[in-house]
Structure formats: structure tokens, C-alpha cells
């Protein structure tokens, strides 16, 4: 697997929204993410797959339920969380 470039990952508005959503909600299933982003299941799944392949998010299965969350062990995730925090803090000021 070839790692994607930063601009490829973050060029998608939906991927950025997914990351912000998981940062805020801690964990969600695919339908929950799709519903909150206002997209269909397939679109949400496609973006989740990209983010998971980059190691930024991970999932856990409970029966048929797949719960996604940020991968706290990844340095990329820490960078994303830091970016969201700094950005939102600056916007509040």
C-alpha cells in the first residue's frame, strides 16, 4: 500500500468533516456518520476506507455493528487532532 500525500487526504471536504465528527463524537457507526454528514452509506464508507488505510482512523466490530474512531496510536491522528483544536480555538477568539 502506498501512503497518500497530505494534499490528497485533506483535499476532500467530506474526509475533513468525518475527522472533525469523530474527534467530537469519539466513535460512530457508518450510518451515524453518513446521517450526520448528509451523505449516503456508500459515500461515507468510501471516505472511511481511505482514512482507515492511512491509519488515521480504526474500527471495531460488535456483532454486525462497525464502530469507527480516531486511531489514537497514530502520529498522523495526533497531528489532525492538534490541527482541529488549534483551528477551532483560534476561530473562537
Amino acid at each position, binding site marked *: 500500500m502506498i501512503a497518500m500525500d497530505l494534499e490528497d487526504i485533506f483535499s476532500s471536504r467530506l474526509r475533513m468533516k468525518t475527522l472533525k465528527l469523530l474527534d467530537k463524537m469519539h466513535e460512530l*457507526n457508518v*450510518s451515524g456518520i453518513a446521517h450526520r454528514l448528509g451523505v449516503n452509506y456508500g459515500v461515507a464508507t468510501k471516505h472511511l476506507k481511505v482514512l482507515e488505510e492511512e491509519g488515521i482512523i480504526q474500527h471495531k466490530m*460488535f*456483532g*454486525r*455493528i462497525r*464502530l469507527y474512531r480516531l486511531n489514537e496510536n497514530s502520529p498522523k491522528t495526533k497531528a489532525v487532532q492538534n490541527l482541529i483544536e488549534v483551528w477551532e480555538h483560534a476561530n473562537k477568539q
Partner: protein
Amino acid sequence: MSHYRSVFKDETRLDINYIPYALPHRESELRLLKEFFSFALQSPEKMTQRVIITGDVGTGKTALSQRFGTEIAHEATKKSVNLYYVHVNCREYRGSLFLILQHAVSVFHPNFPKRGYAAEELLGMLMQMLDEENAHIILTLDEFESLVENEGGEAVYKLTRLHETRPSKPQRLSLICILRDLKIIERLDASTRSSLQSNIINLQKYSKQQLVDILAARAVLAFKPSAVPEDTLEMIAENAFSENGNARFGIELLWRAGKYANADELDTVTAECVRKAVSSIVPAMRRSDLENLNLHEKLFLLGVARIFKQNKNASVTLAEAEQTYAVVCEEFNTSPVSHTQLWKYLRSLSAIGILKADVIATGTRGRSTNVSLPRIPASELEKELDNLLEDEKT
């Protein structure tokens, strides 16, 4: 503008959801509950427990269980045991096993999806979560009747026989079932019944003195010093005792009485505040009850109402009541009835719940009778009687 005065120090201590640190007269039951679950702090994976707590409304079932839950969870943290206490009111979740389990799951995964699977699958998911976190759970099913009524025995069977379906795995789920009446258990099949009924804690109705102790303990937490006189507490306890020993009713009455004291800008919670509180909760006086009284019963009652309107005490002697009655008779141009007849009236007024008569021993000189007005605000009673007596004149 005048400063707002309050008899309360912290009225949240009278809230139905507040669980006090000490539970007067439930100490031994709390120790027993801890004993039943002592394994959970030593080797929680080796066994599970099922306990039934039963008793009438207001006997402290929920408070006992929640106090236990807080204490065992605290102990578990100290011993690095991953133990959760989860309290669910089955009625709030419409007696649905699915919704009850969803509440338990939300402890571990707050955003777990709410649809798309069955209760049995959800139970499996809960066990998976517990396995992954090496956690144990004591699930309290409050108002257990609601679950049995809605789901029948099957749901209880699933919960109680869970470990038979996962024989080689550590034990994870213990149950506390809270219910008013054990009769509901008869609806369950024999094996579920036997697995539930081995540990039963039956909470007896509180005595009047026990209710006084409970109310006094709450009053210390909720009210400013000396804001609730002893006879006010006794009067509230008396009311709670007559409501089947319901401590919850007593605590609510104490809170309401405090509110009436504040509304009247008083420094203490008086007997009249309690009467107003009672009549705001239960329809204490029906006009027809008063209409059916004869003239002298009404006059006697009017005298009693006038005494309590002026007097902050919860009770007066029959002699005092009789003197006031004589004054009322003068006002209405009629001769008072005899002491014996008045005593009979007092008994019939007690029988219909308007007054209360307590015969008390007075040292070597025999007995005397105390009269109290337990439920109806004196001002309201006086107004009603004035109207009725006016009607009789015309």
C-alpha cells in the same frame, strides 16, 4: 425590596434522586448486600450473583441499591477491579429488554447505534464489550415488574442463564432485581425462579420513629439549623406513616412544607406549612365531608381551626380545644355540648381523617388527649366552615 429569606440550606438534598451518604435503619440490609457481592472485589470472574430487593413504595429499595452501587464501585476502583454498577429503571424503558441493554451498552459506548439489531444480539455485544475491557457489571433492574410484564419470563431467563451459553469464559454480569411484590416472580419458569430467589432482601415498612429519624437526618442536610422543629418532623412522619410508611412521601412533604414556609416568609417550618403541603399533594378535604357534619361538630372544628391558625404547635390538648369551642358557641348563640359528647365528636372527626386524637399518659394523674389537624391547612378549614355556618344561618 425585602431580602429573600429561605429556610433551606440546600434543598437538592430532598430531591428524589439524591442518595444520602447514610441510610438510617437500612444499615444491616446494606451490609448484607455488600456481603452478597463481596466476591466481586476479590475474584469477580469466578462467579456472578443475583439478588432480589423487595418492599413497599418508599421503603428505601432504590436508595439502598444505589448507595451500595456507589460504595462498591468506589471500593472496586481502589482495588483496581474493573467493576461497573449500572442502575436502570425498567419502567422508564417501557419494560423493554432491548432498551435496558442499550442503556447498559451506552455506559461503554455512548454513541452506539440505537437500531438494527435484536435484544439477544445486543446482550452478546455487551458481553463482548465486557470481555474486551475485562470488566464486570452489576446491573440493577429497578421496577423489575415492568420487565416481566412486558417481556414475560424469556427476557429474565436470558439474563439469568447467560453464563451457561459461554461456559469457558469469565463471569461478567450480576443482577439486582428491585420489586414491590414477589408475586410477579411466580410468572417466571421454575429454573429462572430458582436462580433468582436464593438471595432476597425484604425491606419492612418503616415505623413512625424510624421515619422521624430519616426526616431528621435529611432536615440537617437540607435546612438551616433550627428551621424544622421536632414536632413538625413528627407531624410529617405521622403523615408518611399513614401513607404506608412511605419515606419518599415524607421527604417530599418536608420539601413542600419548606416551600410554604418560604412563601409565608417564616423562619421555621410550622405545622400549618405541613398541612398546606399535605393538602397540595392529596385532596385532604372534601366539602361534602364538612357539609355532613352536625352544627356542634362544625363549631368544634372551627374552634380547632382557629387555634391552629394562631398556634404554631402541631397539637393542642382537648381541654384547650374545648375552651375555644365554648367561645365559638357563644358567638353562635348556642350552648356547648357536654365533654362526653364532644369526645364522641372528636372520635368521629378522627375516623373521617379531619382531626387526629392521641391519648397520652400524664404521669400519675391519668391520661389526657391531644388534638391535631394533620392534613388540612387551618386557614382553609376555617374559611370553609365560616361559609358553611353562614349558609346554615340563612
